């Protein structure tokens, strides 16, 4: 490995000593406590898994460790000394390197320039010595088994190779701690093997690796210890070998196996009379790195749940069906006729509506009124000769405001002033105004209060009873289990199981999620006895 010119020169700490330790770390954002008295310790020469579902606080913790955020309270000790990093640069200079999920490099700059940005080798005039830089860049990449022309702009490389450049950058600064945030999410299996080789090499050199991933197989393959975060707190920390998969999943999701609970906490009434031909058929949807031959069917009047951990391909499946992501292969059929994939207008015309996961970024227009927000998508159908039929809009808006029980002072109130639950209802109304045949709901109740949640759940139920086909994505196990007639379980972008009828229980769902991939079935703990298995393509 190249010794970077300006790298800190401490000797590597002995194996097993704490390299980076935080105590009672607290960080809050307006309206949310992201980290609540978190204790965490990464030791030299070990790979430490940091896991948790969405909103658990992983990203916040990483950003505090790397100087992007400042903690409100708590202490960070690095190699025994108390530190407080004000900027990413300070953390990097101290010896903490980070590889982000999305490749965070500059696409138009060359590979070598990206590798050495900020620490370019310079000649005695202070000018960058490109010859030395290119040789060093080439050597650093060769060490990782990557052979590319380092003078090429980064964007001409594949995503995997770009990730390798990011990795080379992280390790060539002579880091003591390397943090990897879902580094494999865009890698080919061969590249994952290379990455794991590098991680083992780092570990053997006494570097502490903090590894964030949602792929259980990877965690058990590469990690030594694990810390599970949930709702900003540490719920478990220890050796990963002492924790079986099922326990790990139940810790992440916050649901106990066989937990005694009252039925009917959610407002779902349960089964619907799903009958007739499927209204939606998604066949063998494939999207590189994300989906592998995912097939899902929804009948009219049926709520089909998509289960799985974060990053298992749930949202991607919904987006591929709704035309927001173009699948490389596979078909989508609505009521038996094929829909052109990769086109949102085509999907909407065919009767597919997607309520996206992030309503702020992908749905609501806060500055517009309730009325305008509802009418937005349906406008082309509501206008004649380019003129909008105002009275028809009024009728539609009134109908939906009443039916969905949208609480607003008037149809002219700005949506930004409404509560989260009512915003979600406005979005729902927008899509219902399109008279869809299939409704795809991605986390429809996330971030809204309990009362509104129950109302949205009740609405979903009513919609299904009216004959709409619903595909429901939810990280809330209870919601998924009680709301769905069937649950299709996704893992690493492939369908691994399907739960029907009596099988739709939290226990079986968790077992299905924790189950090893079909390829290595049998070697892991907690193989599910119950669920019917559907072979994924992977």
């Amino acid at each position, binding site marked *: 490995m190249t010794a970077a010119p300006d790298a800190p020169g401490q000797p590597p700490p002995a194996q097993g000593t704490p390299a980076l330790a935080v105590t009672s770390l607290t960080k809050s954002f307006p309206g949310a406590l992201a980290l609540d008295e978190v204790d965490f310790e990464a030791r030299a020469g070990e790979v430490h898994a940091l896991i948790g579902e969405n909103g658990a606080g992983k990203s916040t913790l990483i950003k505090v460790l790397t100087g992007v955020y400042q903690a409100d309270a708590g202490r960070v000790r690095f190699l025994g000394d108390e530190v407080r990093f004000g900027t990413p640069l300070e953390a990097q200079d101290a010896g903490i390197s980070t590889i982000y999920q999305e490749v965070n490099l500059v696409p138009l700059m060359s590979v070598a*320039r*990206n590798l050495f940005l*900020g620490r370019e080798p310079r000649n005695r005039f202070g000018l960058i010595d490109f010859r030395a830089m290119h040789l060093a860049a080439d050597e650093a990449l060769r060490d990782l088994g990557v052979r590319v022309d380092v003078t090429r702009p980064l964007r001409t490389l594949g995503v995997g190779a770009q990730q390798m450049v990011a990795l080379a950058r992280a390790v060539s600064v002579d880091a003591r701690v390397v943090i990897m945030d879902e580094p494999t999410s865009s890698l080919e299996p061969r590249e994952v093997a290379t990455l794991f080789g590098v991680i083992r090499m780092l570990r053997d050199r006494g570097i502490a690796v903090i590894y964030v991933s949602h792929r259980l197989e990877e965690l058990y393959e590469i990690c030594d210890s694990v810390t599970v975060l949930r709702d900003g707190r540490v719920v478990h920390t220890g050796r990963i070998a002492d924790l079986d998969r099922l326990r790990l999943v139940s810790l992440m999701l916050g649901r106990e196996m066989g937990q005694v609970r009252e039925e009917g906490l959610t407002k779902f009434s349960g089964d619907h009379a799903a009958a007739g031909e499927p209204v939606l058929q998604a066949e063998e949807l494939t999207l590189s790195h994300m989906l592998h031959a995912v097939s899902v069917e929804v009948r009219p009047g049926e709520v089909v749940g998509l289960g799985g951990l974060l990053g298992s391909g749930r949202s991607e499946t919904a987006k591929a069906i709704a035309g927001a992501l173009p699948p490389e292969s596979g078909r989508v059929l609505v009521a038996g006729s094929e829909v052109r994939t990769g086109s949102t207008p085509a999907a909407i015309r065919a009767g597919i509506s997607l309520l996206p996961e992030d309503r702020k970024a992908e749905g609501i227009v806060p500055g517009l009124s309730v009325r305008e927000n509802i009418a937005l998508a349906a406008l082309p159908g509501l206008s004649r000769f380019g003129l909008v039929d105002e009275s028809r809009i009024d009728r539609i808006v009134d109908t939906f405001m009443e039916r969905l029980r949208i609480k607003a002072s008037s149809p002219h109130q700005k949506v930004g002033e409404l509560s989260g639950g009512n915003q979600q209802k406005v979005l729902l109304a927008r899509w219902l105004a399109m008279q869809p045949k299939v409704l795809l709901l991605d986390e429809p109740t996330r971030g809204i209060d309990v009362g509104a949640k129950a109302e949205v759940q009740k609405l979903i139920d009513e919609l299904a009873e009216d004959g709409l086909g619903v595909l429901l994505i939810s990280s809330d196990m209870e919601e998924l289990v009680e709301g769905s007639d069937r649950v299709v379980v996704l893992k690493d972008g492939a369908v691994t199981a399907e739960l029907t009828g009596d099988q739709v229980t939290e226990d079986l769902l968790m077992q299905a999620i924790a189950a090893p991939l079909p390829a290595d079935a049998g070697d892991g703990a907690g193989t599910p006895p119950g669920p019917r298995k559907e072979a994924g393509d992977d």
Partner: protein
Amino acid sequence: MTTDTTEPAAREKDASPGAEQPQGATRSERLTSLAQQHGALVALLVMVLVASLSFDSFLTGDNLENMAVSSAFLAVVALGMTFVIITGGIDLSVGYVFALGGVLAAWGSQYGTLVALILPLAVCGLIGLVNGLLIARARLAPFIVTLAAMLLARGVLLSVTDEGSTTYLVDKDAFFARLGQEKLLGIGLPVWITVALFGLGALVLRRSRFGQYVYAVGGNEDAAALMGAPVARTKIAVYTLSGLCAGLAGALNAAWLMSGVTILGTGMELEAISAVVIGGTLLTGGFGFISGSLVGVLLLKVIQNVINQIGSLDSAYQQVVSGAFLALVVIAQTWLGRRRRML
């Protein structure tokens, strides 16, 4: 992709990211990047060829020298603008800052050459610095900040010239006037100064760490920050540099005209932006080179000159042609960009 077998050869030849020839890249990719880099140069050469064949008076020493000197001032402004645009920003204030620099230099020349140079540089550099601070620290939009600075510079300009009624003259015996008047090897001093500044600018952009930061900030600001690049300081530096360049250009212009002319500089910011973009720098940032901006300035000036040569054409046509040319370049850039993404 990890086992790309391209041999890392021809390492020595390196310039800005734009000038990097992707070895072993596909042919069409190479063509695309060639077109992006040298399109303006080809257009300039064609223009010069056509003009020299059409007009006898075009390829004369006087005409060329005249064009070179009048290009020099815009070129210096465009030099600073290139840095700003590569970071993904824009500087609308340079036109009036240029005029202000000229007036301050002319006024200051009565107290000596040092004052005539230091005063405009200090004031214009300060305006640039404030622009940079507001953009980088207060995170305001460059467009609006520099628009405000433009109005401010104009206000200061009007107040020091009593609403434009006072014109400060440079004493023709002053050493300062010689900066604009003197010739070396038959070519005006402003041209030599400009050439030197461009050489220096290219060196800084290509070979200094600061230059790398400029590209990184424009290419992906978040990534640059995460890689530890001093994003705010880089932005502050480029706007300060732009202010300094505009001020210096104004001062040199005053030395050349031997007076501080208030009406000059109006619309110059747009000319400078046009020149930079025509020269191949992406308005979205992250890609561009100094030499391209020089070519862009020369191209604009040659168009202007040719239209003047035609004589029967209203000089307003010069703007029509420049505008059309700019539109063409932007269309071509978008097209090339799209092609690149598809490759």
